[in-house]
């Protein structure tokens, strides 16, 4: 086939050829039907229904339900459970995004250097990413127990005064959960940054060094701008992942103590599948959608500005 396109005979026919090729793809338009059917079935219809339920007080079982307008939305932002869940979701997303990406960046710099152990270190730092979140949730639930490994290590190194009831203290629990999320996903950020770093030519770094730029200034002024796409991708991944966080919270605390560690996703699960408050759960789903959509639009804007 390659030799055919190289023969001069076909050269002048470029335009008609393109049209024929286009119609080839258009002729098999039906190839998209299975995808469209599944997508409409599993995403579009349920989402529209979810939006509609959010305006009702349906309990998920009875045959009749009342239209209540925006009452469920008002409830979310006025009752303490809803407020805590929204606050936690935003807090987790912001803190995890910043800390995970900073740590991931520094680890990436470390394992991008000419150290002998860099290959094995990359594999080890990335390993938690492929482990299921619920195994990690249960593992850390044990580590964080009042007599668990974390407190014992603190005792061992003479920091016994820092012992905490990591998951039982309502003021602390969200931060403990963030540690777990960051621990699990920092390897993902590292890998994206590594891919970006491989695009920074060594000559650029050398030139910066010869110009007398120290390692810190070199990193900030030379490397960071070249990593802009990696930063955008990383931030996007951690923001959207943060908004949807469910598994780790559900396994470690079930949203407790007393709802102190609920996120929007755990509150949706509780209300919809345990408390029979379908309308309220659906409204939470819409709130989450708005968060994700706003974050995506901002990201998209930043990305286009960067590239354009």
């Amino acid at each position, binding site marked *: 086939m390659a030799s055919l396109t190289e023969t001069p005979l076909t050269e002048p026919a470029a335009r008609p050829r393109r049209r024929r090729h286009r119609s080839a793809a258009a002729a098999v338009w039906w190839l998209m039907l299975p995808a469209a059917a599944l997508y409409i079935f599993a995403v579009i219809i349920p989402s529209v229904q979810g939006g509609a339920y959010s305006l009702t007080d349906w309990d998920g079982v009875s045959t009749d339900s009342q239209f209540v307008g925006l009452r469920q939305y008002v409830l979310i932002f006025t009752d303490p459970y809803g407020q805590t869940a929204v606050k936690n979701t935003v807090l987790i997303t912001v803190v995890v995004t910043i800390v995970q990406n900073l740590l991931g960046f520094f680890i990436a710099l470390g394992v991008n250097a000419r150290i002998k152990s860099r290959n094995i270190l990359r594999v080890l730092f990335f*390993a938690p990413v492929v482990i299921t979140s619920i195994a990690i949730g249960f593992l850390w639930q044990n580590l964080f127990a009042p007599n668990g*490994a974390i407190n014992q290590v603190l005792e061992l190194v003479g920091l016994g005064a820092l012992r905490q009831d990591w998951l039982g203290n309502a003021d602390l629990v969200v931060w403990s959960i963030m540690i777990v999320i960051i621990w699990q996903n920092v390897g993902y950020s590292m890998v994206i940054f590594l891919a970006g770093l491989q695009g920074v030519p060594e000559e650029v770094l050398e030139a910066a060094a010869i110009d007398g730029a120290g390692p810190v200034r070199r990193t900030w002024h030379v490397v960071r701008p070249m990593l802009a796409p990696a930063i955008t991708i990383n931030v996007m991944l951690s923001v959207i992942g943060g908004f949807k966080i469910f598994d780790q919270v559900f396994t470690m605390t079930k949203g407790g103590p007393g709802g102190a560690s609920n996120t929007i996703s755990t509150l949706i699960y509780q209300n919809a599948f345990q408390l029979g408050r379908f309308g309220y759960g659906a409204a939470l789903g819409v709130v989450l959608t708005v968060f994700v959509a706003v974050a995506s639009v901002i990201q998209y804007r930043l990305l286009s500005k960067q590239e354009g």
Partner: protein
Amino acid sequence: MYRYTWRTAILEAVMILTALIFLFPIYVLFSLAFKAPGDPSSLIAPPAQPTFANFIDAWNQGGLGGGLVNSFIVTSITVVLVVIISAAAAYPLSRAGARWSNVAYFGFLAGLLLPAQLGLLPLYQTIRDLGLLGSLAGVILVNVGGSMPFSILLYAGFLRALPTEFEEAAAIDGASPFRTFWSVVFPLMRPITGTLAVLTAVATWNDFLTPLLYLSGSDQQTITVAVYGFVGQFGAQWNLIFAGIVISILPILITYFLMQRSIIQGFAGGLKG
């Protein structure tokens, strides 16, 4: 230019120390799993007398074997269906160049903005009404449908960067449009197919919420739901629980260490699309 200097050595030491601290939770996981319940050593010390008893008990009591088999079935069928269905859709969507294909493409992309949580309850009821609760087919249906926006985005991004010469040549050679897609375009998309397969396989194997909703209470469970039930069943017997958790993560860890290069590449490469 780069030599192994004392600075490099210090960096190496710092990175290895960081990695050791980072891996401490994994060490505790394996250490506890190998300890007999009455092991006299402290929680953070290695087992005094390592034993496989927890693993044997966990395997015999936990229903983990069935969970692994079900997870394998769900993951492999999901990956195959996602790859074929989204590759097929991406071809006309990104190559037809017509108004309808652009509209449909953005219709699929809109799904990226819709978190699964929004349609969670209505979809659950639909699956229930279809009699698919407690069946692996229900989970697969939900998985495949939900992953269409992302996988079509990946394929379409790849196709847009792929030169059209091969397809044109195939058309000139008289290949039917379907044949062009199946024998020419689909094989050319192999790099992105690999990426998508890795991402889909890891996500499906580790997924918890979907199988929890659609399979809990039935005898068909995936490994994540089985582990969840296992922990509930054995309360505070952490040695047993950790052995169960090790069993549940072992298949993916082994796969990861065998295929680390392509798996890490899959994660890093899927995002440029």
